[in-house]
Structures are given as structure tokens and as C-alpha cells.
């Protein structure tokens, strides 16, 4: 292992140039944050991020021969992921892509202490279990649709 000189005045590290947009670190600002829909209803926790080669690039810049991506092509977040990817983040491994619940990055309206979406959670795949529980378990118990804040 090559040891690096360390400390706050580490001359081996160049100062980071100013970036043209807002900076987000995946673990610090995105992963494991609560995702809320347009009505502030919780959707899920952000379990993982899907990364893709930025669209609109010339085809010859995509190293397609073994599907491997590297630093020569720009990569962007294409979607927020939730669902079984939580299990694999905890225990390792990787679920097949068909098991991901994808929330496209284009639907993200704001990233703060929570991630806001610009769509309603009712139509999302990520919340099907919530809807199933509502329709088949909780909704069938008398009083399940009673509003506790309405009338005592």
C-alpha cells in the first residue's frame, strides 16, 4: 500500500476548481434520504441511484463492447432506486434490474433534507405495496378511512 502524506495542508492535493452547478455527494445528500411526493406524502427512502451514460452523446463514445463504463464518457443520475436494492445494500450483491423501482431524475424537483418529487405517489410502482396494504388489509378494517384530525 502506498502511503500518502496527510493533514489539512496536504500539498499533494490540488484545490478543487469552482464548479458550474450545485454539488451533491451521494451518501451525504442523496442516499437514505426520505423521498416526498408533490403533496409531501412520503414515498420511500432513497435506497440507491441508477447511473447512465449521459444521453445525446455520440455513439462511438459509448464503450459498448463489454458494457463497461469508464471515465471517458460522462455519466449522470438517470433514476432514484428503491425496493429490493435496500436488501442488497445491506447484505451485498445486486438485484436484477427488473426488480428496481425507478423514480426518474427528471421527476426530482428539489433536494434538501428531503428529496421532493414533482409527481403524486399514487401512480408510482414504488408504492404498490402501500396501496395493496391499504386496499386489502387496512381499508377493510372498519374506520380505516376515518380522519382522526377531523372529529376527535
Amino acid at each position: 500500500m502506498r502511503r500518502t502524506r496527510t493533514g489539512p495542508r496536504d500539498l499533494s492535493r490540488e484545490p478543487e476548481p469552482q464548479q458550474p452547478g450545485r454539488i451533491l455527494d451521494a451518501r451525504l445528500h442523496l442516499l437514505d434520504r426520505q423521498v416526498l411526493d408533490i403533496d409531501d406524502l412520503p414515498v420511500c427512502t432513497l435506497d440507491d441511484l441508477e447511473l447512465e451514460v449521459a444521453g445525446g452523446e455520440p455513439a462511438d463514445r459509448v464503450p459498448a463492447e463489454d458494457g463497461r463504463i469508464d471515465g471517458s464518457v460522462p455519466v449522470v443520475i438517470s433514476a432514484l432506486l428503491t425496493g429490493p436494492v435496500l436488501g442488497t445494500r445491506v447484505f451485498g450483491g445486486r438485484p436484477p434490474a427488473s426488480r428496481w423501482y425507478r423514480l426518474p431524475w427528471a421527476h426530482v424537483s428539489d433536494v434538501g433534507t428531503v428529496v421532493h418529487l414533482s409527481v403524486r405517489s399514487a401512480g408510482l410502482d414504488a408504492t404498490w405495496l402501500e396501496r395493496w396494504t391499504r386496499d386489502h388489509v387496512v381499508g377493510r378494517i372498519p374506520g380505516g378511512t376515518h380522519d382522526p384530525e377531523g372529529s376527535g
Partner: protein
Amino acid sequence: MKSRLLTVALGILTAIGGFLDAGDLVTNAVVGSRFGLSLAWVVGVGVVGICVFAHMSGKVAAVSGRATFEIIRERLGPRTAGLNLVASLAVTVLTLIAEVGGIALALQLASSVDHRLWVPVAALAVWLVLWRVKFDVMENVTGLLGLALVGFAVAVFLLGPDWGDLGAQLVPQVPAQESAAVYWYFAIALFGAAMTPYEVFFFSSGGVEDRWTVRDLATSRLNVLVGFPLGGLLSVAIAACAALVLLPAGIQVDSMSQLTLPVAQAGGTLLVAVVIVGLVAATFGAALETALSTGYTLSQYLGWSWGKFRRPAAAPRFHLAMILALVVAIGVLMTNVDPIAVTEYSVVFSAVALPLTYLPILVVANDPEYMGEHVNGRAMNVLGTVYLFVLVVAALAAIPLMIATEAGG
């Protein structure tokens, strides 16, 4: 202005009434009957700790709108937070079992109907309240009725003790007939009873349920800083009752009914009735809080919709989690396990599970990204750090001491 004063008074009163749960009741009585008041200092340490902890988590909830377990997941990542979830959920369900059992035992005191028959009734009542009743109504009613436990403090006065003698007991010392390991084991149990993780989950999530904002911070601080210490005084009053009547008689507390004996001696039938109302309300309130906490922790870790302010149909998995927790509680109590023994274990495991919950709150309370200008001040950080050490030491010592002393045997 008048209504604001009323709100503050109500908040303080509910904090006093809501402070005590089955863990506090049992542990204080057991400790009082074995150690007198020589462990009362631990209640003080625990009360300051829960004030610091609840205040920080309440502040984080009010400023950032994030409840405690969302923060834990965000800061610790899915793996460590998952471990914490398993531990916290286990302790919270254990506490829920203890509380539901406590309701049943308290109801038995008023009815002489066997507590095992009361268990399903108590659990059903808890569920109905969770299902139908408005959050603040629930909080205020149980809190105010729980104030009836002031009966223990009244009893101490009516017993007319030699105050100098009682005061002398407050000095921390290991009684002659007990070993140091047992003394410290019960110190950790008392500490865990005062600082249970569910209180923090409930407090911060409750802040979100009540839609606290930065403006409510002063109120929440006052509720905590006045209400919890007064609740702690009630804990000490229970220990004092046990120390004054049960210790000299050679009675070791192993059932809830023994709690009423000093009260009967002091204040007669009426005071006993008042205290029984308090016991039912305190355990019922705590059962609600622990049941909600199981829902809160699970939902916040997994990002489900949660909250009592939503219709059950709008937070279905949250409500389902609480129903399952109550079913588990009934199932465990139906195995004829002694609820008092469950309570005694739950407070010790609380102490073990605390640091993982405490650390993320302390970290986030210092993070300007969440807190803006409301980050912890210097005094709060010094206190916070001191308690971080206390919690870690207590958590590490709890299990070895439990094994060495055969759970306080």
C-alpha cells in the same frame, strides 16, 4: 395569551404524567425496597439525560421536520441503521409487552379479575385509541390522568418520615447486604428506565405530528425542562414509599400489587384508588407511545407514510406495523410470562440500545445543513458529550453485569 399559558401548563402536566411508565414504576419500587434511596441519584442523572436527548431530538424535528429514525438512517447508512432498527424495535416491542402487561396488572388491582384475561382487552383498547383518537387528545388525556401518580408523593408526606433520615439515604452507597455489582446493575436499570429509546422516537415524531415549528421550540423546551424533572421526582417518591414501608418489612417487590401497600398505609382507600387510576393511565399512555414508536421506527427507516395525523388508509403500513406489534405483545403475554420480569429486562436492554440512537441526534444537532442557526450551543454540546460517554459506559457494562449478578438476583 391566556390560551398560550394554558398550552404551556397542559404541556408540562402531560410531560409529568407521561414521564412514568411500567419500567419506571417497577424499577423504582424494586430499587426502593432493596436499596432505599441510595440509588435516587441515578434518577437525577437519567432525567437530565432524557431532557438533553429529548430536547435535541425535538429541536431537530422542529427545525428540519425530520423525525429521529429518518435521521438515523440518513446518517448511519442502511447497514448500521438497520442494526439499530433491529435493536430498537426489539427493545420497543419488549417495552410494549411490559406496558400492556402493566395495564393488565393495574386493571387487576381494581377488579381482581386475573391479569391474563385483561391482556387482550387492554391491547384492543390501545389499538382502538391508535385507530380513532386524535393525537393531542390521546396525549393530553393519558398525561393528565397519569398525574394521579402524584398520590405516591402525597403518600410519602402522609407517612411522615424522619426527613433527616430519608435525606441521609440519598448519599450514594452500597447497602451492607448487597454487592457492588448488584448495586451498579440496578443503577443501569434505573438509568435505562428513565432514558428509554422509545421516548425519544415518540417525542421527535410527536413533534412532527403536532407540526412543530421553530416558534414552538421554547414551549417544547419548557415542557421538557419542567415536566420531566417533576416526573423524575415522582419516580423518587415511588422509591421512597418502597424504602419507608416495604424495606423495613423485608418485602422484595415482585408484583405491582405491592406498590399499593405503602399508599394504603399512608392515605387509605381513597389514595389507593387514585394511585390505581394513575397506574392504569401511565401504563396505557406508555403502551400507546411504544406501539406508535414501533410504527415510527419501521416506517421512518423504510420511508413509508406514517403518522397518526393521517387517516389509517393514508398510512396503511404504519398502522399494520402497530397492529402486528400489539398482536406480538398479546402472544408473548399469553405464554404466561411475568410482565414484571419482562419490564425488568426491558429497562436494561434499553440502556444497551441507547448509544446508537443518541449519536446521530447529537451529530445532526450540530449540522448546520439541517439546523441552520439552531445548531447546539457550547453548553448543550458539553452536556451532550458527557452523556455520550455515560451512555456508552452503561451500554457496555449492562450485559456483563447482568450475567455476573444473574440479573440482580
